[in-house]
Each structure stands twice: as C-alpha cells, then as structure tokens.
C-alpha cells in the first residue's frame, strides 16, 4: 500500500503570539519544524509501514522552499519519498484552496506510484488551528474521511478499522480504502530520528510540483481560489483570577461551593 502523510511547517512552539496591530500570527524569526500534531501522523504512517509488508510512505507539504526542512525531517524518521507542493501562486490559500492543492498532489502520487491507500493528517496545526483540512481533502477526493482517530486496530491493503474518539465515547469504523484520516495525540508516541537517518535524509531527492505540474490554474489557488477572508484575529482574553472557597470544615466548603454554583446558574 502507498500511504501519503501530509505535514505542515509551523513554528516549533506550542503557543504563537498575535500581532496586536494586525491580528496576524507572528511567525517570522521563530524556529520552525513539523507541526507537532503532524508528528503523530508521520509516526502512525511509519507504524503502518512496519505492520503491512510492502508499504511505502510519501510525505507531502504545501508551502515555500523552506518546507523542504520538514519533508526531510519526516524522511529522516523513515518515510520513503517526499514531494514539495510549491508555487508562488499558492501563497495566501485558505483551507478551500489548500485542500484542492493537496488533493491534486495526492492524485499525482497515486498516478505515479501505483495508487494511494491512506492519507494521514495531524489533528490540526499549531498556528492556524482550523482542523478542517482532513475533511476538506476527503471531500475533494471523494474518499471517506475520519477525524479524531485514536487507534487503528486493524489495517490491511484493502480496508482499515479505526477508532474515532467522540465526546461521549468511541466509534469503531471500518473503511474500505482509499480513505483520509486525521489522528490524535493519543494514537502513539512519535519516535526520534537516528543520526544516520538524518544524514541520509539530507541527500534524498525531494521533488517539487508546482501549479502546472498539478494541472491547477492560478484562479483556483492562492487568494483567488480562496473563499475565506480573515477579517480579524484576537488573542484569547486571559483568564481572570479564580475564586478560593474557604470554610471551617469540608461540609462548610461544599455548601459554599453549591451556593456559588447555584448563583451562577450552573446547577
């Protein structure tokens, strides 16, 4: 089976500041790496490769030339090939346009490498945080997509069984392939690269596919192909001070707590 794992290059930090003037996410000058959520997708792809004989993993990343760095980071971990989807026309794409670029990239991987069985994503990015890309790519491809996958108990060339986490429990879903999945942090513990893996990844070829190679015209990608305008971004207001409930005995404290909860109409 061929697996495609999609990785985004994002600031290598869990919290990213907003510019108070423009509201834009301030990423310039920060060290970057694979979006931390995507590390779980890469790891799961590698574990599937170890489980299913003959599996190959291709890494895709959309973005400027610097994204080469995250593709090589995934190659260092054991992915087989990498493709950078890059074109000046792609700049400014929202999820709508981005999902088209990714879908075309995945289709091209399928055409050139004998089909694709699974596409894996992380749960969301640590900068944009939309969490929509997985479903959008599934829709573009016309393949089933499942988000919030916490386990893949069964996997074979033609079908996989996945556990999807919900607020009130877990769904067990069987999917015929091809399919698109996004995985949660719970699914695995990402491995570290080896020194040899890192050095070998530096020398591996990484192809670049632009708009023309993917058969995309300038009006369907980038700003022109996007449907969303970010009007304003604002930091989440910081939390106010908490309330400490005091009392002589645990019973007193419990009563005071219940009174407060009633007052706030929580109970």
């Amino acid at each position, binding site marked *: 089976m061929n697996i495609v794992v999609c990785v985004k290059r994002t600031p290598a930090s869990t919290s990213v500041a907003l510019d108070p003037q423009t509201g834009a996410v301030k990423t310039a000058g920060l060290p970057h790496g694979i979006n931390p959520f995507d590390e779980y997708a890469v790891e799961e792809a590698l574990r599937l490769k170890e489980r299913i004989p003959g599996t190959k993993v291709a890494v895709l990343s959309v973005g400027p030339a610097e994204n080469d760095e995250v593709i090589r980071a995934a190659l260092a971990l054991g992915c087989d090939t990498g493709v950078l989807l890059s074109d000046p026309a792609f700049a400014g794409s929202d999820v709508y346009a981005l999902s088209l670029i990714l879908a075309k990239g995945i289709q091209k991987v399928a055409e050139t490498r004998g089909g694709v069985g699974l596409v894996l994503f992380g749960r969301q990015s640590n900068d944009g945080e939309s969490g929509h890309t997985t479903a959008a790519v599934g829709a573009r491809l016309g393949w089933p997509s499942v988000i919030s996958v916490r386990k893949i108990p069964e996997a074979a060339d033609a079908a996989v069984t996945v556990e999807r986490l919900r607020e009130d429990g877990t769904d067990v879903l069987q999917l015929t392939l091809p399919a698109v999945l996004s995985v949660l942090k719970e699914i695995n513990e990402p491995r*570290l690269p*080896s*020194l040899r893996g890192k050095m070998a990844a530096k020398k591996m070829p990484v192809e670049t596919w632009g708009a023309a190679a993917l058969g995309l015209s300038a009006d369907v990608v980038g700003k022109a192909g996007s449907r969303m305008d970010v009007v304003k971004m604002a930091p989440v207001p910081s939390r106010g001070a908490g309330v400490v409930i005091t009392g002589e005995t645990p019973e007193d404290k419990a009563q005071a707590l219940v009174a407060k909860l009633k007052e706030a109409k929580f109970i």
Partner: protein
Amino acid sequence: MDYGLTELQREMVALSRELAVKKIKPVREKYDESEEFPWDIVEELRKADLFGVYLPEEYGGMGGGLFELGLISEQLSRTCGGIALCLMTSSLCSMPILVFGSPEQRQRFLPDIASGKKLGAFCITEPGSGSDASSLKATAVADGDHFILNGVKNFCSSGKASETYVVFFSTNPKRGARGITAFIVEKGTPGFTFGKKEKKMGIRANSTHELVFSDCRVPKANILFKEGMGLLVAQNTFDFARPGVGAQAIGIAQGALDETLAYTRVRKQFDVPVASFQAIGHMLAECATQIEAARALFFTTVRAMDAELLPAVKKAIAENITVYEAMKALNCRRWSKESAMVKVFSSDVAMKVTTDCVQMCGGIGYMRDFPVEKYMRDAKITQIYEGTNQLQREEIARMLVKEAASSEREAAGS
C-alpha cells in the same frame, strides 16, 4: 558561541539535545529516586545511533573522535549527568580496546559497543587501591593458555548493566606497577559475579557495582595489549577519557544554569524578578563565563587530541596494527597534562556553578522536586572519579616541572 561545527556535528548536538529533552527529562527524577538502570533510555540512545559517534566506521561507528563524544556527553548531561554516564562508561571500555586492542579484539568487541547492543565498563579501583592504582591486589595467574582471575574490584560504573569489562589484575605482584595487566572480561564468564551495589549521593541513575572474581578463567587472547603493560593502558585510557568527564561537568553546569536562569527571571521578590538584582545578575554572569571558558578549553584540547588520534586510528586499521603502535610511528604525544587540565577546570566549574545555582534559587533550589539540587549532587562526582582533582593537580605540576627541566636541558645543549 559558534565553535565551527560540521553539519554532522551540529546534527549530533541537535539530536542528543532533542533526545535529552523529550526522553530523558521526563524520567530523570524517577531514576534519581529509584536508582534503577535507565534501560529505556539506553534503547533510545541505541536507536538514535549515539553510542558509536566516536568510533571508526569500520566498526559500525560514525567516524568521529573525542570531540564528538564530548559534544553528545555535554548535551545528555545537561539534562541528566547520571543517565548520560551509561554512554560514557561504554567509551571508557571501548577506548582502551580501540587504542591497545589487537585488530582481532577491535573487530570482536567494538561493533557491539558502537551499536549500543552491549554496554561496556572499566574497572581498576579496589577497596584498598583508589588514587594509588598501582597498589592493586587482584591477581591473574597463568594456567596453560588461560589466566585465572581472583580478587574484588569496586566502584565500577555501569557495573552489572554492562556486558564487556576492561579490568586490571596483577600478573606479577613482585614487579608492582610493572606487573599489572589489563584483561577484557565478559559478563557471564564463570567465576565473575557482582557484589554490592552502592547507594550514592548523585549520578544515581548509574549503577556503581562491586565486581567479584573467584577462579574466573579467561583465555590469554583476552589480555589487552601486553602482560605487565596494564598501567600504561590505564594511564592512556584516562588521558583520552578525562576530557569526557569535563564534558559531563560542562553539561551539568549548563543544565543547572538553564534552570536557574528560567526560575530567577520569573521569581519575584520586592515586586521584581530576582534576576534583576545585581547580586544575582553578577552570579549568573560569572557562571555563564566560567562554563564558556571550560567549554573553550575542552573543545580546543580535544580537537588537538583528535588531530593526532584519528590519523593513528586510520593508519592502524589500514596496516592491521594496534593504534598505540601507529601513534608511536606517527610520533604522537601524551596528553596527560592537558587532559587533566580539562577535567580539573570543568569539574571545579561544575561544582561552583551548581552550588551557586542552588543559592540563586533560594529555598526551592534545595528541594528535591525542583531540579537544581540534583545538578549539585551530580556535579560532585566529576571532581572525584577518573582520578581526584588533587591527583590531577599533582599530575599537572609534575608535567610542568618535567617540561621546564627538559626545555632547560635543550637550551643548555644548543
């Protein structure tokens, strides 16, 4: 500071740092508390290819030298000096095999150490013989094509956890220091068992064990180098290994300073961060300066040592001779003085810096659920093992006098 590292060296630093932060940091307190051996981390170091960074590619290493070993030792020790030691003791075992081992011994023992499949250890110390290593009492008596080993060794780092041991015995007690011979002994050899496990102040994630030999038969082929040349083997090993203790010390000091800087910037007293008090600021500055000075001395010294060692290793492999013979042929010098200087300076810096770090953090610095006191406990060993700092100063002084005398002789002769 940019020390002009190659791409491979930069990757070694980045990977050992990443491994330390992601894998070692979450478990260092657990191992400090339980004094168990960190096998899960050994596995991580193995998978990351870090065990062989300083060994030749011919034996499955990454082709580096003492410099590379120091780079990763610093980064691992920066998070936990105790856990880092499992890798460093392997080098204490493989260095004498690399330098003094026959081509067959190199081929037999180095690949498993380079891959991390086996850990190695080195033990010369005995209950009655510490600083005065040449007074050791354990004996090896020839019996056909075997030797029979008897005696007790103690304070062996990574003892019991290791598979391969370089151990020193007297094959000729009458000759004293010239009767000492180095042997390679494998775990599982009948008559070789493990005695007491020590309870320690610091580096508690590493096992410090007694080794017990009772009528343990080893083949003559396990003699490292030559009969009666054990002290030479030990002294040369320490020349190459002491800078590694320096790297460990530098890492410990740096780790303590990292934690202290982070804490003193957020800890407020009198409404301001304590780092903004000049008394604290100057201590931070002094710590950082001392650490950088130690690192600069370390880097400069091991680069010079590698510049002599690595060509000798190449020559030895090409010509099927021992590295020691190749070093003689290439007129390599001894590094006792410089290597002692690195160890003394770095370990004294580590002790001073970690003590000051506890002070700068105040009461919390003294608490075991805050990481700084552990650095202070771990730092102490670097002033003691591989020769106490008193003995290192003795060595440096002896070499100074010797060098002065010989340059005087040269001047008189010319």
